[in-house]
Each structure stands twice: as C-alpha cells, then as structure tokens.
C-alpha cells in the first residue's frame, strides 16, 4: 500500500522518496555543480577572454531565443522546432542502435565463446573500431549507394564496438565455478546459455550498451551530413556551424545532452529490472 513508511518531513511517489533530506543528498550537489559551471562559463565569455558565447546568449540572442521559446513549431521543410529535430535524429539513432545491439551482442557472444573466432577477428576489429565516424561516410555511400541506409550504417558502425567488446569480455570472464557447476549438473547447452552464461555476462553487456548510446549520438552529425537537407539535430548543428550561430550549436548540445541523459537513465532502469532477476 502507498503509505507504508511516512516521513513527517516528506512523502512518497511510488518507490521514490521525496524529503528535505533526500533533496539535500541527491538534488543539491549536482545543482550546485551545474550552477557553478554555468556561472564560470558566463563569466569567461562576458570577460571577453574567449569568443564563445555564454549560456545567457540562449536568452539574449534573438534567433536562439526563438528556438528556445518555441520548441514545437513546424514551418514546413527543415524549418522545425528543436523537439522535432531531436525526435527525427532519435528515430535514426534508435534504429541503428538496435541493430548495433543485436549484432554486437551476438557477435560478442560468438567471439567470447569461441577461442578461434576471437583470434581470427580481434585484429580486424581492433583496426575497424579506430576509424572515426566521418571517415565512414564516403565508404558507406560508395558501398550502399543509398542515402538513408548509409547514414544509418555510419551510426551503427560507430556504436557497435563497445557492445561487441564488452559482451565478449563478459562472456569470457564467466567464473570457473559456474562452469564447473554446469558440468557437475550436466546442464544442457541451452540451459547453460540462458541460465549461466547470459546472466553472468549481463552486467558487462549493459555497460557496453550504455557506452554505445553516447557513441551513437556522436555519429549523428556525420550521418546527417551524408543525408543533407533533412530534419535532424546533426544537420541542424552543421547548419548553425556554417552560419556561425554558436549559441544555436550550444542549444542543440543542451537538447542532445538532455536526451542522452534520459536514454542513459532508461537504460539504467532497464538494467536494474533485468539484472535483478
């Protein structure tokens, strides 16, 4: 029932407790850190040491403020509010990221369990994963000869590596005890896979998944330049860069950061749910 524990200085929403104590502990420190960071930044740009506009420019610069004030507008074509730009990019990221997760986890398990595969593919992967996202652009275009798949491929190839590597490590590090137990109870291959291997590797897999989310966002600019003339936060940033509207770039980064935070929190919550089992 809802009112199991009642703290006189607070209340609960679901399983989250909101009290002055918990606010002091969890909300205050990051709030102070963020505020100090913003204040320092504002001071630096106001003093003229750097050409970078301060956070206040999001409100003082008329063009940027219009974007801040109306995140949902749609004037047709690529002239849409920040929410729609971010949403379009998010859709691309989700598709590629899901693909990266599927491929990364399956390949990672394959490499982790097969010694020979690992020896064969390691050098190749070591080489491929150092290629920067922008370098993949001409390659993927030449290979696929279609815009959208090429863009999605750029995101995919950037974000697949942490998933793959972490999964492989997670599978490799299964404690010898577990393997012994499996032998002792003569567990079938299927049982071994689902009840021993996966659960033990899961924390590693999730680490890989969470790292890969930020990498997927990294590639979005490269990917959207490939496509050109589309709604998306990556193309928006490129455009703002071309026109030297730095405060718009900063605004875009705020949106990307916020979405990244949301995604990471969601991933963490998912991890809690699954790993608990």
């Amino acid at each position, binding site marked *: 029932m*809802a*009112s199991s524990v*009642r703290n006189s200085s607070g*209340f609960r*929403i679901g399983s989250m407790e909101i009290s002055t104590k918990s606010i002091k502990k969890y909300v205050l420190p990051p709030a102070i850190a963020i505020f100090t960071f913003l204040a320092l930044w504002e001071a630096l740009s106001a003093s003229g040491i750097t*050409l970078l506009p301060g956070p206040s420019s999001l409100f003082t610069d008329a063009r940027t403020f*219009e974007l801040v*004030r*109306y*995140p*949902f*507008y*749609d*004037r*047709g*074509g*690529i*002239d849409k509010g920040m929410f729609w730009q971010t949403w379009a990019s998010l859709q691309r990221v989700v598709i590629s990221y899901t693909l990266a997760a599927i491929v990364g986890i399956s390949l990672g398990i394959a490499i982790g369990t097969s010694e020979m595969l690992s020896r064969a593919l390691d050098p190749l992967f070591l080489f491929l994963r150092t290629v920067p996202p922008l370098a993949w652009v*001409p390659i993927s*275009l*030449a290979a696929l*000869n*279609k*815009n*959208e798949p090429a863009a999605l491929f750029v995101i995919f190839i950037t974000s697949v590596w942490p998933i793959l590597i972490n999964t492989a490590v997670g599978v490799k590090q299964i404690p010898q005890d577990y393997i012994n137990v499996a032998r002792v109870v003569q567990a079938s291959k299927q049982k071994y896979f689902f009840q021993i291997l996966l659960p033990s590797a899961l924390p590693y897999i999730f680490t890989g998944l969470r790292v890969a989310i930020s990498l997927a966002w990294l590639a979005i600019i490269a990917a959207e*330049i*490939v*496509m*050109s*003339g589309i709604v998306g936060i990556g*193309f928006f940033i*490129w*455009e703002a*860069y*071309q*026109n*030297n*509207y730095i405060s718009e770039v900063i605004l875009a980064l705020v949106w990307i950061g916020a979405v990244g935070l949301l995604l990471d929190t969601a991933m963490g919550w998912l991890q809690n749910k699954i790993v608990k089992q």
Partner: protein
Amino acid sequence: MQHLSRRHFLLAVGATGSATLLKGCAITPPSPDALSPKAQALTLSSLTAPETTVVKLGYIAIAESAPLIIAREKGFFARHGMTDVAVSKQASWGAARDNIEIGSAGGGIDGGQWQMPMPQLISEGLITKGNRKIPMLSMAQLSTQGNGIAIASQHAGKGFGLDVSGAAEYVREMKASGKPFKAAYTFPRVNQDFWIRYWLGAGGIDPSKDIDLIAIPAAQTVASMRTGSMDGFSTGDPWPSRILRDRRKYGFLAVLTAQIWPSHPEEYFAMREDWVRKNPKAAKAILKGIMEAQMWCDDPKNRAEMAAILAQRKYFNVPSDLLIGPYTGEYILGAERKTVKDEKLAIRYWKDARGSVSYPYQSHDLWFLTESVRWGFLPQGALGEADRIINAVSGEKFWREAAQELGIASADIPPSTSRGIEKFFDGAEFDPEKPQAYLDSLKIKTMKA
C-alpha cells in the same frame, strides 16, 4: 488522508503546469509579413504537361541558388505543372555530388545548382566514386557575378586590389619565410578555384607554386581568417557580406569577380541526363519555372521580398539586410572599406550587359574546360575532346525550347551557342574558336601533358 491529498495536489499542479506549458509551446513563432501573391497557375496542354510532378533539386545556400528557391516559393514551378518540387539544402558541394550520384531513387537529388565544370566532370566520371560516368545535362546558367576574394586584414596595404602585381613580392617573401600565403575555396577545380587563380595569375603570382590553395568548408575558412591562420577566401555572397560585417574587421574584400571578368558565367542548373530523357516535358517545365524566377529576381521592386524569402531559416538563415547590398551592386571594397555602388557589379539572374545570363553558352563550357587544362586539372589532350564533352553535356536545346514555349521574345534568345570573344580585366582575350591561342597567351599556367 493528508498524505493522499498532498499527492493529489502535486499531480494536479503538475498536470495544469505542463498543460499550460505545452499550450504555450504549441504556438509557432511569428512568421515574416505576408509576401506578394504567388504566380498564377497556367492551364497546361498535353504538349507541355509534365510527365511527373515530383523532383528533388539540391542547392547550396549562396546567392546563385536564388532562382531555384524563388521558383519554389513564388509558385513558378507549380505554375508549369511541377507541383512537388523539393529544394534540398545540401551540406556541402561534396554532399551535393554524392547525392546526384545516388539520384532521388536512392534518397539523393535529381539535379540542382552546380559550380562549373562539375556537370562535365561528373559526366566523364572524373570526380565520382569508382569513376562511374553519370551523364548530366547542363540546361541553364543561374546567375552572373556576386563572387569575390576576401583577404585577411593583416595583409591590408600590401597591394591586394584588382591588380595584384604589387603584392607579388610580398607573397613570395611569405613563401620564402616558410609561412606561405594560404587561401581557400569550398570545392576544388571549379569556379571559386578558377577565380582566385586567374586573379593571382594576372598579377604575376603563380597559384600553384607561390601560395597554398586548399578546399575547406566555408565556415571553417571564416573561423580561420578570424584567428589569422587563413589569408584568403574565394567565395560568393552572402559570405563576403558576413566577413565584412563582423565587428572585429578581420577581413576585407580585395576584388570582385565582376571586376575580373564582367558578366562572367557563374553557377549552372544541371540535372541527371537519365531523368531528363525520361521526363523531357517536366525538365522544360522546371526550366520555365527557373526562367520566370530569374526574371522576377532581376526586377528591382522584388528585391526586398527576395531578400526576405532567402533570409529565412530554412533557406540561407541569415539576417535579411545582409542580402540587399549585392543586388544593387553595393559593395564595401578594399582595406579602406570604401563603399562602391555600381549596378554593373551587381548579381544578375536574367540579363546582363552582354545579353542573356540564363542561356547556357557552350563557349563558356569551353572556357571552363580550357581553364581546367591551364591549371593541369585536365590533361592537354582534353582540349581535343572538348567538343565531344561539351555537346554531350549541353542542354541548350532544352533551354531554347523552354524559352520558346514560355514566349520569350526572340531578341532575348541568343542566336548562337557561342557568346563570342571574352575579355578579361588584364587585357587577355578568350576566343572560343581558338582556345589554344588563349592558353598560349597566358604567362602563368601549370599544364599537364
């Protein structure tokens, strides 16, 4: 009881708060004032009705793209039956080239705005992936003039003007000291590359040896000029205006292409040949839309509206007053920042001092190819192939037919595919009948066997 009502209160407050916020967010920002009415639709006969109403044209956000944008915004495309023309802003010239290789079937573009001689280079497979030949048809010239060379302020007073021979020693000293003069354009071996090379070559500076010339995105060049690590920029409106407007005064406009070669060919409208062959009437409908847009753009009373349309976020995304000057021929030239106002220097879209801007003269195609040979971008043997290449890529026939269908006065339709002898500011002459003589007359060149 107290606990429940507190929770209820919180939820209620949250709900109303987000509702009001969302309502406020749903409002679109105020849009620009109502513009003049769009062009009226025409009734189309079976002879002119296009085969398809859908096409995707790419553009780069500089002044040359205005006819494409205006044709879309003022309904000139729709008027001739092309109701679904998408004008797609390309991230860079490289992206535009990639997209034309792919075509709209693969998510790319069917045609658009090009520096020269990109249509010829793409048709011959010289700049495409895997050297694939993608035949193109160059069907109209979009504009003339409106380009120039910006120089970083630290070189003020060193002789960077129309005649740059006064700066030749200075540039060579820079090279000798180990820090050569660095200049940039946005795409190699095309217009902007040619303009700065011609200008320097005329002043006795060898652009292939005495300076560093590179291709960099425009924003990066401007940023580098600001920090002093880039010395020159060959570019087109609205970039010069942007550079000059910056309060830090890090650059000045040394020369305009309008001064180097009055009424010179600039950027062109070209499409994939397979699309044009499949949809010839649609191609002509697009051309007619572009021609009407060009006429509209040249009309002085439309200038304010043109600047307002182009300045929008979805097009050039600049303050609209940045665009007015060049259309009236008003430029701030030289390190002394002298305001020059001369209609002869303005960007023109339909007619200029030498006749038609829009007609794609084959003699101009020849100049671009000849100049490519001059700097070694093409081998000398290319001159022997020039006729074949030019004829294959020239869509001047489509222009003529479209002009006739549109009812353009025959006085405005050039009788010949050649504009005759071209004269440059340094006295050089290009005779399309004798391109080799032009090459021989030039002192500075870097030809490749």
